[in-house]
């Protein structure tokens, strides 16, 4: 019996190859080919929001704890990085790690109620983080080095003789961080810890019965998710906006991140990226469309309102028609393509 090539399982699965090609394109082709507008207005916010979506997905999608305070942890990350850099002048990677750790610590504190509260009671109590952090950052000048209304400006991003201050540099820095964190999260959710998270989400009592440390798992999910969201905050402040005030991390931002996780698909890794892509591109597209069809006769405020209405409708439509989000739609599309090209 001869073994044909088709019966041998490929050494590297097709999905991994696809991801590697995508990464190669993103790292090598995009910086050379993408226009400044695409990098500044689309890719940089996309990367930061994807990371935030990924962090929230870990908490809400995998561990089942709904949080409405994500923007607060973004703010903690951004302001922590700013202060570590300003006051200690540490190298960039150390600053990033410390910022993530700070966000994790704050996340741990606001995750404590999760040990007692469930569902809506917990969701509402995460709002406490949202309002408290925003208040503290605005109220105490120390956090923003006493700048008026708490605005911070990004420091120069350099490490080991490399400067990341150019547009392409910031993009590559952001992309590297997102790639690294995504890889780590991927390893994590496919390992035993990921199983623990899902067990706690699906049935807390059963999880406890089979010996999963429920309380520790919950707190740990809060800390890790906050750390990732904190890093996303650093990217948002340092690579995308460059100057940021606490009001930029308001409740609307928290909802935006929650929407990314829902639209993309809860408990999937690529969902965060798909959702973030939609959320970033969609308003730009809508503004373009209204400019194209109505030739600027529509007031920008009206376009914003329409954007709100459409966004809300999209959320409801996704919840009704495709609760597993864009990720599930992508799955279906690839399956259809595969059957079309006869790889059964």
């Amino acid at each position, binding site marked *: 019996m001869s073994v044909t090539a088709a019966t041998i399982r490929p050494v590297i699965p097709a999905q991994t190859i696809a991801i590697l090609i995508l990464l190669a394109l993103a790292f090598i082709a995009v910086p050379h080919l993408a226009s400044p507008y695409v990098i500044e207005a689309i890719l940089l916010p996309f990367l930061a929001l994807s990371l935030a979506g990924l962090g929230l997905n870990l908490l809400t999608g995998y561990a089942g704890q*709904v949080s409405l305070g994500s923007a607060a942890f973004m703010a903690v990350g951004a302001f922590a990085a700013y202060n570590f850099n300003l006051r200690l002048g540490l190298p960039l990677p150390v600053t990033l790690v410390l910022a993530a750790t700070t966000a994790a610590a704050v996340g741990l504190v606001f995750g404590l*109620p999760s040990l*007692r*509260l*469930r*569902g*809506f*009671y917990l*969701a*509402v*109590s995460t*709002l*406490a983080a949202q*309002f*408290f952090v*925003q*208040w503290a950052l*605005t*109220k*105490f000048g120390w956090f923003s080095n006493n700048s008026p209304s708490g605005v911070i400006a990004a420091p120069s991003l350099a490490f080991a003789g490399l400067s990341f201050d150019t547009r392409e540099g910031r993009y590559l820095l952001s992309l590297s961080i997102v790639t690294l964190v995504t890889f780590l999260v991927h390893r994590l959710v496919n390992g035993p810890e990921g199983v623990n998270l899902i067990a706690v989400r699906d*049935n*807390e*009592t*059963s999880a406890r019965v089979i010996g999963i440390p429920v309380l520790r798992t919950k707190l740990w999910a809060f800390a890790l998710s906050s750390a990732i969201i904190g890093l996303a905050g650093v990217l948002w402040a340092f690579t995308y906006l460059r100057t940021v005030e606490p009001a930029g991390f308001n*409740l609307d931002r928290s*909802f935006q991140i*929650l*929407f990314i996780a*829902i639209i993309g698909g809860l408990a999937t890794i690529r969902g965060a990226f798909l959702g973030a892509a939609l959320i970033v591109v969609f308003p730009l597209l809508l503004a373009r469309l209204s400019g194209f069809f109505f030739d600027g006769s529509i007031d920008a*405020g*009206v376009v914003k*309102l*329409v*954007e*709100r*209405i459409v*966004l*809300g*409708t*999209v*959320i*409801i439509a996704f*919840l*009704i028609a495709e*609760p597993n989000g864009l990720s599930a739609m992508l799955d279906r599309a690839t399956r259809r393509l595969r059957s079309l090209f006869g790889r059964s």
Partner: protein
Amino acid sequence: MDWYAFLFAVEVAVGGLLSGVMYALVAIGFVLIYKTSGVLNFAQGSMVLFAALTFVSLVEHGVPFAGALLLTLAAMTALGFAIERTVLRPLANRSPMTLFMATLGLAYVIEGAAQLIWGTQVHRLDLGISNAPFEVGGIFISTFDLVAAGIAAAMVAILTAFFRFTRTGLSFRAVADDTFAAMAVGLRLNRIQAAVWTAAGAVALVAGLLWGARLGVQFSLSLIVLKALPVLVLGGFDSILGAIVAGLIIGASEKLAEVYLGPFVGGGIEGWFAYAVALVVLLVRPSGLFGKKLVERF
């Protein structure tokens, strides 16, 4: 503490209690919907905005007060039925969290639509209630707040009577008690849910008029949902009495904290203090003061 400082503290507390009634007014709308359908309706705040904006715009277009009230009520009824048909029915039997997220989307839609229809400018709303404070035993009390509290009390009385003495109210209670049993005896769940959302819309109208008269009718009116949420968690999601008691507690403690604690931390703590109070209580009682205990069954 001398006598005047004491009087001042009492005055602050009374002012806080009265504004707590205003919080409770918004929270009651949540409770109605949560009790009968288990949905935490985040869109309640945008319903308040929608109702107030519709009313004030109608009045500005020359519609008399009573007519505007009726028309707005009709609009809230239409809204309630539309929400039932387009959001609740397709999402029947889905997890409460899914429904909650749907109401987040709904809040965006209603807020956007209300401002798209009626414009984004700030409207002044005059209900003809004097805002002059009057004195009782050395304490100044705002007339408006007192009238608002009276209206809130009347509304609670009407709701209680409605639940107790009408057929619709009885069916609300049946659905709240056991949805499946209610359906089994032939109650039409769809219609009841639409009616509940309409009732919540009416509550939103009352809250919108009172809050609108105080703050002006504008987008920020929908943010009172954030004031109502801690009241709601503190009182328990499914208790009207809880909403009132929690509203009073939060209103008074918030004002007292702002006056006596605020200066030490730079002020402006009203944004989160209510949440801190609610959290502390929740750590002792995880379902709020009056909420039904969560029982886990497998």
